[in-house]
C-alpha cells in the first residue's frame, strides 16, 4: 500500500511510523470501499426491476451489518489509541534534550523563511521589531553580546544529519505553515507565538536526491524535455578530459550533444532540489512561491557551511546595526 500511495521520499526518523499508519488506514479504507462496492454492484444487478419485479417488503433480516459497524469502530479505536495518540504525543511532548539537538529559530514572513542560528555560544541574541530592516529581517540586535555570533539566513536552512533538529517557529505577519514533505513535519507559524517542532533527519539531501534520480536516454533529437530541468549527479568528463558538465549543473541541448559526442547515451539525473520547506497556509499573493530549502548535510559539510557563515559575520557589530 505504501508504494501505491506514492508518498514523497522520507528522510526522517519518525516518518516511517507516519507512513505505516497512512498505509494501514488506507488499507481499511480500501477494504471498506471494495467490500461495499462489491455488495453495491451485486445488489444493483441482482435486484434490478427486470430481474426482480416485486420487491421484498421486509428486506435484510440479519444483523451482520451491526457487527460490521462495530468492527470498523474497533479498528478506528485501535488506530486512534494504538497509533495516532502515541505518535502525536511523541511529536509534541517528547522533545529531545536541547544539548543533543540542532536548535534553529525560524521566523516566517510574507514570503520567505528567516532562519536564525544561535552561533557558537548556543544562545539566541536579542531581537526587536524596531530593528527590522531589509538587511536585518530578524531584527537582530548585533550589539547584544549573545547576538554577535548569531547566523541569519533567508530561505536556506542547513542541518546536520542524524542529529535531532528543534525548530522554534514563529511569524512576523500572518499565519504561515512550515511544511517539509520529506521530513514529515508540518506546523503553522502563528504570529505572536513561538511553537517548537522537531525531527531527526536520517538521510542527507544528497542521498535523497540520489534516490530521486532517474535514468535518461540521450538521443540526438527528442531527449525527454524533463532532463533539462534536472541536474547532473556526477561530473561528466569528455575523452579529451575537458569537463562537459559538473555535478549539480543543469543539462542543456549543447551539453547533450557533447555528451553524445563523447559516447554517453544514458545519464542519471535528479530534480534540482528535494528537501524543500513548503508554505502550506495561504499567506497572501506570494504564498505559491514561499519556498525555502532545507539542506541536510553530513556533519563535515555542515560544519564547513557553518564556518563559512561565521567568516561572513560582520566584524563591527555596531556598524551592522546602523
Amino acid at each position: 500500500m505504501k508504494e501505491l500511495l506514492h508518498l514523497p521520499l522520507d528522510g526522517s526518523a519518525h516518518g516511517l511510523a507516519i507512513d505505516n499508519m497512512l498505509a494501514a488506514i488506507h488499507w481499511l479504507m480500501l477494504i471498506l470501499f471494495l467490500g461495499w462496492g462489491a455488495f453495491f454492484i451485486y445488489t444493483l444487478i441482482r435486484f434490478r426491476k427486470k430481474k426482480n419485479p416485486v420487491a421484498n417488503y421486509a428486506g435484510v433480516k440479519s444483523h451482520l451489518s451491526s457487527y460490521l459497524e462495530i468492527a470498523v469502530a474497533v479498528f478506528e479505536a485501535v488506530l486512534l489509541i494504538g497509533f495516532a495518540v502515541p505518535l502525536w504525543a511523541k511529536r509534541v511532548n517528547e522533545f529531545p534534550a536541547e544539548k543533543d539537538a540542532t536548535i534553529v529559530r525560524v521566523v516566517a514572513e510574507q514570503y520567505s523563511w528567516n532562519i536564525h542560528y544561535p552561533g557558537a555560544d548556543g544562545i539566541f541574541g536579542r531581537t526587536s521589531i524596531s530593528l527590522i530592516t531589509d538587511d536585518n529581517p530578524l531584527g537582530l540586535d548585533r550589539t547584544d553580546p549573545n547576538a554577535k555570533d548569531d547566523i541569519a539566513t533567508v530561505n536556506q536552512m542547513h542541518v546536520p544529519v542524524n542529529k535531532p533538529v528543534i525548530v522554534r517557529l514563529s511569524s512576523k505577519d500572518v499565519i504561515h505553515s512550515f511544511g517539509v514533505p520529506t521530513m514529515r513535519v508540518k506546523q503553522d507559524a502563528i504570529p505572536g507565538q513561538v511553537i517548537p517542532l522537531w525531527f531527526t533527519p536520517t538521510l542527507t539531501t544528497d542521498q535523497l536526491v540520489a534516490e530521486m534520480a532517474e535514468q535518461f536516454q540521450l538521443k540526438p533529437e527528442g531527449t525527454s524535455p524533463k532532463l533539462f530541468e534536472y541536474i547532473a549527479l556526477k561530473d561528466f568528463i569528455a575523452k579529451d578530459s575537458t569537463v562537459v558538465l559538473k555535478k549539480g549543473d543543469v543539462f542543456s541541448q549543447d551539453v547533450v550533444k557533447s555528451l553524445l559526442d563523447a559516447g554517453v547515451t544514458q545519464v542519471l539525473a535528479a530534480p534540482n532540489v528535494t528537501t524543500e520547506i513548503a508554505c502550506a497556509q495561504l499567506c497572501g499573493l506570494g504564498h505559491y512561491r514561499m519556498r525555502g530549502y532545507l539542506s541536510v548535510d553530513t556533519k563535515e559539510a555542515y560544519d564547513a557551511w557553518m564556518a563559512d557563515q561565521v567568516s561572513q559575520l560582520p566584524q563591527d557589530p555596531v556598524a551592522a546595526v546602523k
Partner: protein
Amino acid sequence: MELTHAEDVKKHVRVYVTVFVALLALTIVTVTISYLNLSVVPAIIVALIIASIKGSLVASYFMHLISEKKLIFAALILTVVFFLALIFIPLLAMSDRIH
C-alpha cells in the same frame, strides 16, 4: 403558561414585584462587593454567581421558564451544552499547547 383567570394573574403580579426588588438588591450587592477589592478569582466567582442568580430570576419568572413546556427546556438544554462547549473547549485548547 396557561393563565385564564384574572385572579391568577394578580397572584403573579406579586411575584413579579418581589423578583424586581430582589434584582435591584442583588445589583447593589454586586456593585458594593466590586469596591471591596477582593483578589481576582474570588471577585469573578462572586460576581458570576450573583449574575447567574439574577439571570435565573429573570428567566424563571419574567420569562415564565419555571412553568414552561418541556419542549422548550429540551431546546435550551441543548443550547446550554453547546454554549459550554464553545466557552470551555477553546480555553482548554489555549492552555494545552506545545511549548
